């Protein structure tokens, strides 16, 4: 690949959203390359991710591949003393589950879902108008009802305040908030975080898993290959901005050039060390990073609650304050005391894949920043194991091995994380787990710009 004509687009991240974006770009006539961001090997194949939206299914004719996404059966917050809160894919089911706890909050949930829907519509339309990329003004309010006006108002508010408006029970608030940890970790106290929050709770992005056999991840990869995308084998090692475009060095020592960069997810952006410039970045994720912990068990684990099944996505986060504190500590570069955890079980229930979506990106010692050391990784894994054992019977007893992976960008000569390369020519699709819809939308914007010229 080295030395060739520069690519028009380099997609960073060998993940479903990356393949989808690259495929759409190549089909649109852009010379496109896809490069792994470097974290991909650390996530197991069964890890849940946001689902692919219907329009991408249509555009890439995914149904023809026979591939299927398996939605997770429920999102469950585990609490102390064996209690748990459930959210199901079906809203009605969720409401029924909630009604057992609190009728009022169940009613509020119905109202809240409507507001979330309106907020998503507004946010999308506003983002389009703001970025001025598609040239459209903010569309007239398609709903023009009271919920819509309220949703618009909520867009500048912290989502903590919005949740407090709807739900009386703090546990319900924490549970609803914990769903945003599945797709994207958004700071609950930051003004303007509600838009991203609404987006993370989009029913279209209900977490799905790719089983073995014909799965969507593989089908998307195939689409990209068929569309003529060059797929790099080695992960990005460093990126330099040049007069026109970027020079991207990969693990095999080769360098390729690309005019624009598109990170397929926040996670890939972090791993590759790039960030988007411009209006409305999401949340305050800049200083935080993600940590994966894989736990191998000697025995099959019983799912933690009677109603929960294997394919459930579990979270541990007891309150909004706890989530915010994790953000604050990540920013402080302080050791997190109660990091929120998202975890799931492998099919044979002998492996737990846990993710800490908000962990410090670097630590501060006497004002000097340093990256994660091997001790930090082990200590963090111990902490996660402890958090899991508090809520899950038998984890510590049957634990065989742990693997820790920190999603880190390039480091400088002192071993501290380098500042991310920020440029107008970098685009980042939202969502820690890769938002396929948004990645494709960003490519559409690019294609439109290229077509306009």
């Amino acid at each position, binding site marked *: 690949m080295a030395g060739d004509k520069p690519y028009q687009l380099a997609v960073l991240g060998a993940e479903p959203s990356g393949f989808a974006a690259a495929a759409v770009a190549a089909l649109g006539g852009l010379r496109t390359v896809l490069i792994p961001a470097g974290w991909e090997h650390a996530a197991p194949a069964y890890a849940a991710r946001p689902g692919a939206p219907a329009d991408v299914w249509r555009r890439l004719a995914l149904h023809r591949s026979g591939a299927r996404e398996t939605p997770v059966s429920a999102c469950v917050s585990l609490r102390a003393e064996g209690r748990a809160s459930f959210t199901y894919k079906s809203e009605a089911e969720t409401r029924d589950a909630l009604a057992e706890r609190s009728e009022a909050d169940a009613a509020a949930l119905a109202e809240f879902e409507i507001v979330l829907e309106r907020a998503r519509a*507004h946010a999308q339309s506003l983002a389009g108008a703001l970025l001025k990329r598609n040239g459209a003004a*903010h569309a007239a309010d398609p709903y023009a009802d009271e919920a819509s006006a309220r949703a*618009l108002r909520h867009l500048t508010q912290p989502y903590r305040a919005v949740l407090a408006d709807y739900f009386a029970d703090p546990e319900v608030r924490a549970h609803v908030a914990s769903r945003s940890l599945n797709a994207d970790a958004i700071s609950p106290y930051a*003004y303007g975080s509600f838009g991203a929050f609404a987006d993370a709770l989009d029913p279209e992005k209900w977490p799905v898993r790719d089983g073995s056999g014909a799965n969507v991840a593989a089908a998307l990869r195939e689409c990209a290959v068929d569309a003529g995308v060059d797929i790099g084998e080695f992960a990005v090692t460093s990126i330099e901005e040049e007069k026109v475009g970027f020079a991207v060095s990969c693990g095999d020592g080769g360098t390729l050039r690309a005019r624009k960069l598109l990170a397929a997810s926040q996670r890939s952006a972090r791993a590759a060390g790039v960030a988007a410039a411009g209006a*409305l970045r999401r949340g305050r994720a800049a*200083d935080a990073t993600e940590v994966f912990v894989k736990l191998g068990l000697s025995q099959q684990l019983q799912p933690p609650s009677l109603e929960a099944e294997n394919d459930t996505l579990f979270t541990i986060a007891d309150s909004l304050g706890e989530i915010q504190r994790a953000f*604050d500590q990540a920013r402080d570069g302080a050791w997190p005391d109660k990091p929120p955890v998202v975890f799931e079980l492998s099919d044979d229930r002998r492996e737990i894949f846990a993710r800490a979506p908000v962990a410090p990106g670097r630590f501060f010692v006497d004002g000097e920043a340093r990256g994660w050391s091997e001790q930090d990784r082990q200590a963090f894994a111990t902490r996660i194991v402890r958090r899991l054992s508090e809520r899950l019977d038998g984890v510590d007893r049957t634990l065989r091995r742990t693997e820790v992976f920190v999603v880190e960008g390039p480091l400088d000569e002192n071993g501290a994380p380098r500042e991310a390369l920020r440029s107008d020519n970098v685009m980042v699709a939202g969502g820690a787990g890769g938002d396929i819809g948004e990645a494709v939308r960003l490519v559409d914007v690019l294609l439109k710009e290229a077509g306009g010229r």
Partner: protein
Amino acid sequence: MNAERLSAARIEGGYDAIVLGGGPESLVAAAYLGRAGFATLLLEPDVEVGAITLDRTFAEEFDAPSYEHLLYGLDPRVVRELALYRHGLAFAARRLDTTYMIGERERFSLNGDLWRTKDALVERFPDEAGAAERFFKSAISLSENARHLFSGDWAGDLSSGYGALPETLQRLAEARGGGLGRRALSSVEEVAEAQFSAPELRAAVGAEAVFRYDCEPADDFSFLGLAVRLGGESSGLRAAIAYPEHGMTGLAQALRRSAQAAGVEFRTGVQLSRILIEWDGAAGVELQGGGQIRCPIVVSGLDPVKTFLDLIGPAELDIELQREATGRAPMLGAAKANVAVSADAAIAGEAAIRLGAPARFVLAGEAADIGRAYAAARRGAAPEKPIIEAVVLPTPVEDDRILANGVAISALVHPTPAEPRPDVRRKVAADVVERLAALGFDAKTDVISSETLFAGDLAKRAGVHIGSFAAEPPVLEQLLRSRVYGSMMNYAGFQFCGHGAGVGTGVSGASGRRAAKAAVRDFRRRRKAA
């Protein structure tokens, strides 16, 4: 007049308009109403009109402003239309120079005339001075473009409180702030990062932009905070940061004189029990003890909780407005610290301070420290390096000799917990004195007296809801809140200009002006219709 006599249960009339509260916005509203020919009565619950703007003696022989100590965005239309210069307003300094102390050692000064930033910085930051000047120019230019957002000029479309957001964003995105239009909603950190690289400068502009706001330099919308802060410069007053003669007391007195000249009558120590709402309009106020003062226009400059929940009552309110007014217990606020330093202290030799003139200092940590200070304050701990805006108050001098016993320093410290625990209070108070010592005195030997008051203390002292002293939400959120307060009041003849009715921090007069103008317009329209 005293409250005793009024407490007799009787009904008074003869006024066209009543203004509640004696803060600057209330005085502005009263003066406008008076000038429009309305017989106006201003009712102040406190013992003195505008106590919150007056100086207060905090130690023997030392006075300091009660809270606000500088002007950022006084609306020039208010100055002109109320003839404030004629009524005694004068500026001791219109473009106050600022000395920044960033981190441990870093120290540089910025010219108060931001158009000459380059000259001020060229020696210290030869490569960045030009970029820093361009940065300020673009911020001022964005401020010009966004003026309509924070000058209260949205009075025309009161019906669409929420719907204003897309239009607002659109306008901001279109604002050609030196190519910054698209960045108008970005974080200040991001905008600064794109323009210059000196971390000290970035920390300094970050500190300016988020000071007294509940958002960090890395948060979306924080750049707008800087644009609003430069309102005084962009509006034509040519006063980026101004210090009136005799401090804020000077401004309060000018406003008071202007109101008096317009025929406004004042009553102090008046205890209100409710605002009379009859049919769909304001009908006057009821006092504690049962007496009533009836009139067709009521403008409230009291805090929103007092106004909407206590005086009007939740039964009369739109649910959204209630939600807005009840708010949430604030976590962050700016603490007010006053320090008196003995005249012998080295501060007299400080090059940046010309005694007899005010001087402004901004102390802050490096960019990352500012974020960490927020995190600490939010969890109720003492922030390690909060942003401190310190004003060395003018001291009478003769031949380089201080005539008074010493020098008073007034400081606002942000972010701090709104109501800290006792140990945190002590730590913050000690830290503030310690850090202010960088101005050139010895924290152990030179301090005559010092006090630190937190948001909770200030609110208690002023007898208002704690929200009035809490950190402000970011500009966009403030704007929407102000529209909710404005648009939700469907009662003819009622207007609100208290805390939360305006955008930005500090005194501008814009919300008082808007409230009075709207009341007058509304009244005339109703009369015509009748």
